[in-house]
């Protein structure tokens, strides 16, 4: 990605998520509380720091963004109200909306699914519609 593209993408991620990564005090409670920690290459606190530093290319390429369960434990427990899950959600959206890249086909999904983890879509749906 061009430097400009990266800057714009970071802005877009921040706009979509409504998260201000500058609020982070780097305590790591988000990662401490994350149930999907061991499945992730990058962990919630790293997402926040990396977006803050503009280092988003590895995040966009990492399967970690699809490992987040959207359980919102990190959002609930962050002492500063940074909401890392929303940031990860935004990066996921940005990835999915990217033009010209290879989009996922339904047939690809089974291979990506992890037996151990609850399916993110189901967890998200529960979170969204159970209240």
């Amino acid at each position: 990605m061009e430097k400009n593209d990266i800057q714009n993408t970071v802005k877009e991620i921040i706009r979509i998520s409504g998260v201000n990564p500058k609020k982070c005090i780097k305590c790591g409670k988000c990662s401490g509380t994350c149930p999907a920690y061991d499945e992730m290459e990058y962990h919630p606190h790293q997402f926040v720091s990396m977006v803050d530093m503009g280092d988003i290319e590895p995040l966009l390429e990492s399967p970690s963004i699809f490992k987040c369960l959207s359980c919102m434990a990190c959002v609930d427990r962050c002492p500063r109200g940074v909401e890392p899950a929303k940031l990860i959600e935004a990066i996921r959206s940005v990835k999915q909306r990217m033009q010209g890249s290879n989009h996922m086909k339904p047939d690809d999904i089974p291979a990506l699914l992890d037996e151990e983890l609850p399916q993110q879509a189901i967890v998200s749906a529960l979170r969204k519609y159970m209240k």
Partner: protein
Amino acid sequence: MQRIGVFVCWCGSNIAATVDVQRVADAVRSEPGVVFSVDYQYMCSQAGQSMIVDAVKEHQLTGLVICSCSPRMHESTFRKTAQLAGINPYMVEIANIREQCSWVHKDIFIGTQKAITLAKAAIAKVNLNTPLTSGESKVTKRALVIGGGIAGIQSALDIADAGFPVDLVEKEATIGGKMAQLDKTFPTLDCAACILTPKMVDVAQHENIRIISHAQVEEVGGFVGNFHVKIRKKARFVDESICTGCGLCTEKCPQKKVPNAFNLNMDHHRAIYIPFAQAVPKVAIIDPDYCSMLKNGKCGVCAKVCSVGAIDYQQKDEIIEEDYGAIVTATGYNPISLEKYDEYAYSLSKDVITSLEFERLTNAAGPTQGHLIRPSDGKQPHTIVFVQCVGSRCAANAEKGKEYCSKICCMYTAKHAMLVRDKYPDTEVYVFYIDVRTPGKSFDEFYRRAVEEYGVHYIKGMVGKVIPEGNTLKVQASDLLMNKQLHIDADLVVLAAAIEPDRSARPLATMLTASMDTNDFFTEAHPKLRPVESPTAGIFLSGTCQGPKDIPETVSQASAAAAKVIGLLCKNTLKGNPCVAVSDEMMCNGCSSCANVCPYGAITYESKEFRMPDRTTRMRRVAKVNPAVCQGCGCCTVACPSGAMDLDGFKNQQIMAEVDAICK
């Protein structure tokens, strides 16, 4: 009509270089009221001042205008000169023709023009000046200290040592506060009780100190030098003057299931008890919620065993009324409630405790005689996890927690970790931190010793959750430096809870009209230069009621507050600022607008009888300004809808006259 003298200073070349001083002196000569004008090299010099004195005598001057440097520089000098010459010091006005004219304008024509205008504005004001005298009020030579922790104790001792009587009000049954509950103190590891209890005894034995324990301030009136305070001394059902503190009653009382608040409810005492062995005053107290004699009139064992007959079931609350010259607030702190912290399982497991509870557990006088055991099963813990910043450093809008750093947690956690490793070397100790903050004398060295000599595992990262499972506590946390998630089976989890000001501080601040910040800490008059005074005159701040701090800082602030109190009480009378608000009671309609904006509570209302034109009389509510409390900001003058309120020294007419002179 005033007889005004105008004195134009050259200030060497400072003014004379860009202002034609002679022209200024000439130009104002025809101004209304001016009978004399002159220019001179250095008006503030001895010669200049005697020139003013002579001119006053010679021309019978009633007002002075000095065109010179900033009034912030020499206003007081020239006011003294005026007094020397026999006229009221507030009949002097300064036209600032140096800082705000000669120094900022390069052109002599423009500078002179402006200087003339400024002089004319000052003349217009002096024409309306009236002599003002500072009100004097007597100082009651007695101090009140609210809160009997280490802060209050230190302030009380220092004031009492200077020879002034002090009343020390404490809401608990004994003085000592939080420090009495601590085990050891960082960074020297002296035992808290060993250094505190001698001071408590000093307080008890000091001839100038009266301890009013188990009491609360109920009402505060008056102002600096003259506070009138009502204190409710709650019934303790034991006559304090007779009880010898032998403790026999506390052994015989049949009601054994009263939670011991001093040990943070980790064990029990009887319904009649002495909070702890070194309590001051060492007098028993009955808890009316548990005593069956007080609840249903049956029992009376304590009265039977008391050899001096100190038990008094009929005792009532007592109201003590006293006058004070100064008040010190030392209301202290409490750890926050951790009930909302589900992730740390504080309310789910007995083995998740706060640091203050840990202090009691390791204290030789505590519920376990200093043996570190798990509260749930009494077994010795082998893995202990300390979590720092629980509730500290949260977002301002967070549902739980405080925005500020509680300051003391890093150090006491290091102390706890070190003490555990020292006493039980086979225990694994983990400390989870966000940052380790150790700014203080020998503080960082202390923390490093905990790591390097005592082998405490310090882990950068926060605990995400604690799950009680069987006998263990499953701790899940991230190690940010190793980029790894840790799962630790802990036996004991200690939470460094944030501290917050005591709940009694907010209602107290309202009574004192002292200001507070959003966290309910008292605000200081100036954060840098007046850190131990409240903006409200006569109120002084001591200890953690002003902000989180450790013991040495608390003690130094307590002594500083005492020094300020002594300085105040040494005076026989207080001279007020004469530039205070005055209300014209003929115009006042008693609407309360002024009192609502007054930051000092200087305005009260009184009903006054007024003669009507038809010879009848009518009662009317009118505002009254207390000149000793008013600081002269003038906010009320603008709020007043009827124009009854005015500010001496800066009257509406005077400011309007200045405006007119400038706009002419």
